[in-house]
């Protein structure tokens, strides 16, 4: 009895949590297979941290069920609730929550003392955890003498030292400076991989999510917008929110005029009297005649000079260029719309140039509004 019926180690069903009359989490369901790293990604206030708190048992949900390894941890309908200290879940907090009145060793040994392990075993396991996070030489220091990054490592050691069923991260990198953050991303991922603990990670930083996760759940306003691997989320967003939140995209309202076959069709967009039809990939649930949003990332658009001979398409005027070495970051005005373009063309573009925008049809998407 190690997994839920659907093969997930952590299973969340129909989770709802109110704050006053606010629905912070509005009936979400998801699962994480054993050993996987799942990220809940979304802007602040989207309910991701509340979801995490419910899994931890620090918040009680208003509806829904949470089970881990086949055991029921929370079930509102069955009035079941396991207090947080009985869940054996490791958690790394945003503020690290390293206890300032203890040394690093005392901090890390705490969960083992609670579990009444023998003195020598505690020593061994603490040493191993500290080695794993690279803090072996800080063991005797008071927690207040650690830098932010070191406190982060100590918090991680404390969370994994008792080999929890599940590891939860609540925006653990958001208080670090950029350089350290990038370094810790890789490190966290390495350590999680090494200990192999099923993990749920909460962040509002999309690049963090893309780098670290096996799976990503994009959330907004308490509901799940899209679930998938980092590549799928980036390359095939389902709707306008995900397109906009992950990376940069050109988004234009349009309508599907033709469907060629499974997942392919033609979208019509109009701007300032100019009306064009573009071949595109269709997101799930979009059919002929439906309203859709054209979504193209800047790197999938090229701007070509001398647009006369190139047939029907989008023709605009360059209004700004920044030379980046391998490409040019351009803004191209088309009617009232400003295209963001990473142009690869050999010729140097200049403001005022008339250009033709060539969209890569394999990366031109029609997504849900």
């Amino acid at each position, binding site marked *: *009895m*190690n997994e839920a019926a659907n093969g997930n180690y952590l299973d969340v069903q129909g989770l709802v949590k109110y704050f006053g009359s606010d629905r912070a989490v509005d009936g979400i369901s998801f699962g994480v297979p054993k050993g996987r790293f799942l990220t809940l990604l979304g802007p602040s206030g989207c309910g991701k941290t509340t979801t995490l708190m419910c899994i*931890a*048992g*620090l918040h009680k949900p208003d509806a829904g069920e949470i089970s*881990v*390894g*086949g*055991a*029921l*941890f*929370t*079930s509102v309908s*069955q*009035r*079941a*609730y*396991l*207090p*947080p*200290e*009985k*869940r*054996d*879940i*490791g*958690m790394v*907090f*945003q*503020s690290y*929550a390293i*206890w*300032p*009145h203890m040394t690093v060793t005392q901090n890390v040994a*705490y*969960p*083992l003392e*609670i*579990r009444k*392990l023998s003195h020598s075993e505690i020593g061994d396991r603490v040493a*191993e955890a500290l080695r*794993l996070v690279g803090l072996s030489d800080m063991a005797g220091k008071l927690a207040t003498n650690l830098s932010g990054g070191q406190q982060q490592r100590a*918090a991680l050691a*404390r*969370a994994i030292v*008792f*080999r*929890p*069923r599940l590891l*939860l991260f609540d925006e653990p990198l958001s208080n670090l400076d950029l350089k350290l953050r990038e370094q810790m991303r890789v490190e966290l991922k390495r350590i999680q991989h*090494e*200990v*192999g*603990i099923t993990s749920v990670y909460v962040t509002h930083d999309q690049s963090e999510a893309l780098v670290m996760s096996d799976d990503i759940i994009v959330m907004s306003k308490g509901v799940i917008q899209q679930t998938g691997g980092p590549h799928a989320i980036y390359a095939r967003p389902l709707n306008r929110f995900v397109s906009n939140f992950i990376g940069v995209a050109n988004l234009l309202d349009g309508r599907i005029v033709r469907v060629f076959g499974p997942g392919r069709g033609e979208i019509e967009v109009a701007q300032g009297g100019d009306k064009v039809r573009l071949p595109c990939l269709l997101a799930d649930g979009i059919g002929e005649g439906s309203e859709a949003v054209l979504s193209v990332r800047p790197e999938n658009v090229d701007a070509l000079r001398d647009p006369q001979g190139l047939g029907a398409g989008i023709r605009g005027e360059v209004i700004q260029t920044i030379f980046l070495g391998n490409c040019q970051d351009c803004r191209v005005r088309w009617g009232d719309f400003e295209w963001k373009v990473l142009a690869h063309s050999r010729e140097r573009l200049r403001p005022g140039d008339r250009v033709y925008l060539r969209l890569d049809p394999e990366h031109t998407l029609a997504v849900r509004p």
Partner: protein
Amino acid sequence: MATEILTRPVEDAPTSRWHSIFTQENIATTLASLLVGAAVILPLFAIILSSFQILDSSGFGTEWGLDNYRSLLKDRVIYGAFVNTLLISSGATLLATFLGVSLAWINARTNCPWRGKLEPFNLIPFFLSPFVGAIAWHNLAAPKVGLLNNLAREILGIKGHLLNVDNIYGVIWVTGIFFTPLVYLFVVGSLRRMDPSLEDSARTTGAGLLRTTLTVTLPLVTPGILSGAIIVFVTSAGEFGVPFKLGAPYGWETLTTQIFTKAVGDDANHYLGAAMSMTLGAITAFFIWIQRRIIAPREYTTVTGKGFRPNLIDLGPWKWAALAYNLAYLFIAVLLPLVCLVIVSLHPVWEGRIIFTDLTFWNYKKTLFFWWPERIVSATNGIVNSFILAFIGASIAMILALVVSYMIHRTKGFGSRLLDFLCVIPIGFPGIVIAMGVLVTYIKTPIYATLWIILLGYITRFFPYGQRNISAVMLAVSEELDQSSRMAGASWLTTLKRVTIPLLKPGIFAGWILLFVIFLRELSISIILYSTGTETLSVGVYYLTNFENEPLTSALSVAQSVVLLLCVYFFRRIAGREALTA
């Protein structure tokens, strides 16, 4: 690294409803809320009811009515007491505000020499008993037995007397100088925390020093000044010892001395006393409400909480005048009264002049040696009882304060807001009013005339002070520190013991000592609730000044002051070090 989970097998959550209701957390917090609720609400309720009951002419039965309130306007003594209370509070507020603001400005914003060293001394009157201050000033400046008046007669050849504190002005004088630190504390904080760039930017626009002080500095600290002034007004209105010593015997009754007369003594009338208490309580609660709802939110400078290095104003040669001014305050408020008490306490009889051949320690023996057969029992009882009350009272109050603070800051919802409100109520009412409430509530229960009823009065009135000390620290300690302990597998109680309490230690310790000091010198609650055998230290002083003589009174007063000063000294030593680890 192996991935097996330590110690415990996978376990389903219990599905019984009782499991989630009877948690350690729920039991502890519910118990504390009920206790606080009962302690605060019952006396208030009882006193309101009693104030509408009229004692009939036989002195046994009662009926409902408004007569008690009518006599507030019709009874000339009570009406006079009402007016005197307002006059004394206003006068003391003016004096304390003037002294407090000027001293705070000198210490926080000028280059007055030795300011750092003077700071702790300026707060000393706050920790001493104003009642003892009144006794000291009586011995200094009573018309006949006043030391200063006798010196004036002998040295300056003045006939009659130079000073007289046995009247309303004396009450205002002693109350004012003793409550000066309250204003000082509010204002010095605001001045220190003020962002110097606020003043700098005024100077860059061309405003001079005086203009900047008047148009920028002063308005910024006005809420602090007003807060301090209101606290002084309310505390003065509830002060019993000073008017009892310097006012009442000379025809200047106040509401507190009248409440006392109605609570004990030959013509005791609890119902009339309750009505007077209600009147006094209504006034003080109204002012505290204004302070908390209207003035405290406007204390701009407290918001930033950053450490600033304020601009110091160079006073030039006037800095010596500032120093002299500060030293003069300390001389008048601390040194002169204490020295006078020591002198008086060494005489068998006090007639206003020092007689070196008579000096003796006899008075200390009679009042302090509680194992000695010839002791004065009322005084020596007080010493033992007060230490018991202070120790147990401070401990219970801090445990209660801890749980209540936890509820207010770590739980959400109606209960936490209600508790927050309950904690403010006792601050709005003077000790003597709460004591009247406790008296009429418990007079027919077994705890009447025991130490327990005094303890109950102390804790009810003063536990919010402890709660504020803990809350201040708790606000600075992230909730995640508690949560991570729960996630590490510790129960609520273990978390409290191993994480929450150690982190709050500075606040708990500071609050404990503060309550210990307050309880050691407490008079206005004790005087209503004591009976033979349960005297407290201040009641002992009251007994001696009322039924014995001034030298004996002074001896016990000196002893009390020395203990209080020692507490403050240790408080500063230890709290200072503790605060570093926070």
